[in-house]
């Protein structure tokens, strides 16, 4: 099973951020605001305390401290801390729910959990319409960069996805 340890520089959706729709992000993601729709994250998705997610989440691993009414599909693990509130279904290889969490729903934990979540996976693949693209971000920065700064002055955008 893959290792989905969180990195030091996750993509952060701040507490004032409200997103509706489909979103694909590469790397780790920290949600502090609200999200509704279909979210695909290749790394670890952390939903902070006070954040809320509705819809379908496909991620490498999920750490939930906030509120979620969703279906979670995680290749690695799903961890719910003591402040988490969850309603929905979980498909994952490893699940941990701490004391104090509020969980109600169905679980499918095991080696074939992703096979059982096939309907969710196919639906999310077809409906993804919003994505970040690393190459597109670099090209945009190249156009907007002043001529005096040179090519290596800025770091390329790292949070992007290739669909």
């Amino acid at each position, binding site marked *: 099973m893959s290792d989905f340890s969180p990195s030091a520089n996750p993509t952060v959706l701040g507490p004032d951020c409200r997103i509706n729709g489909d979103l694909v992000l590469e790397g780790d993601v920290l949600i502090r605001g609200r999200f509704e729709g279909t979210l695909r994250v290749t790394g670890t998705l952390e939903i902070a305390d006070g954040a809320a997610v509705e819809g379908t989440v496909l991620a490498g691993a999920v750490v939930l401290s906030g509120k979620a009414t969703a279906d979670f599909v995680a290749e690695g693990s799903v961890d719910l801390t003591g402040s988490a509130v969850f309603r929905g279904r979980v498909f994952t290889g490893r699940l941990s729910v701490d*004391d104090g*969490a509020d969980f109600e729903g169905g679980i499918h934990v095991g080696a074939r959990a992703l096979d059982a979540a096939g309907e969710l996976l196919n639906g999310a693949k077809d409906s993804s319409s919003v994505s970040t693209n690393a190459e597109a971000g670099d090209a945009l920065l190249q156009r907007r960069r002043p001529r005096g700064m040179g090519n290596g002055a800025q770091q390329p955008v790292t949070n992007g996805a290739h669909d």
Partner: protein
Amino acid sequence: MLIIGDADGCPPVGVVALDPARMPIRPPLLAFHPRSPRPPRQRSVHCPSCRHGFSLTRRAVSVRCPKCATPIAFDDLTLGQRVEGTITTMGRVTLRDTCGVRGRLTCGMLEQSGKFDGDATVYGPAVLQAGSRTTGTLVARSVTIEAGAKAVCRLKITPNPGPPPTPGRRTIEQVRHALPQAAHGLPRVVPNR
């Protein structure tokens, strides 16, 4: 014997043999316990009937709920074979990898390596270890499903697991109204005049 040394942990600078008979004032404590006595180990318990929470010593094997007087047993069970039926204890239940349980399980803690099919209510943590197979319904205070375990079930994690609190004692009139008129067969209560 007294070892004289620095208080900061430096090596001792000398060793003096103390004779209690020659000392002008007898020291109050020549020997002392390096550790303070341990407090009695407690376990927190929730009554399965009324959900009243209380704590008692870990040595207790049974107790009555101080609120509703329901008897509660704390037997620790380890199962290694096929069991079908109802298991109720507020102690720890261990299901070995050779075990297969079908039915209703109520316990204080659950550690599962074998198979379980049915309704489980765990008033403490539930640990589903690698190789375990779980189907049915699991209600617990917390749960850990390790990699290699398989669980296809409904899960409910709540600080107060278990059925809703049992209603208090009802009067004969409440029972009479709750039952169908033809079925109960209770004698009619005539108020005193």
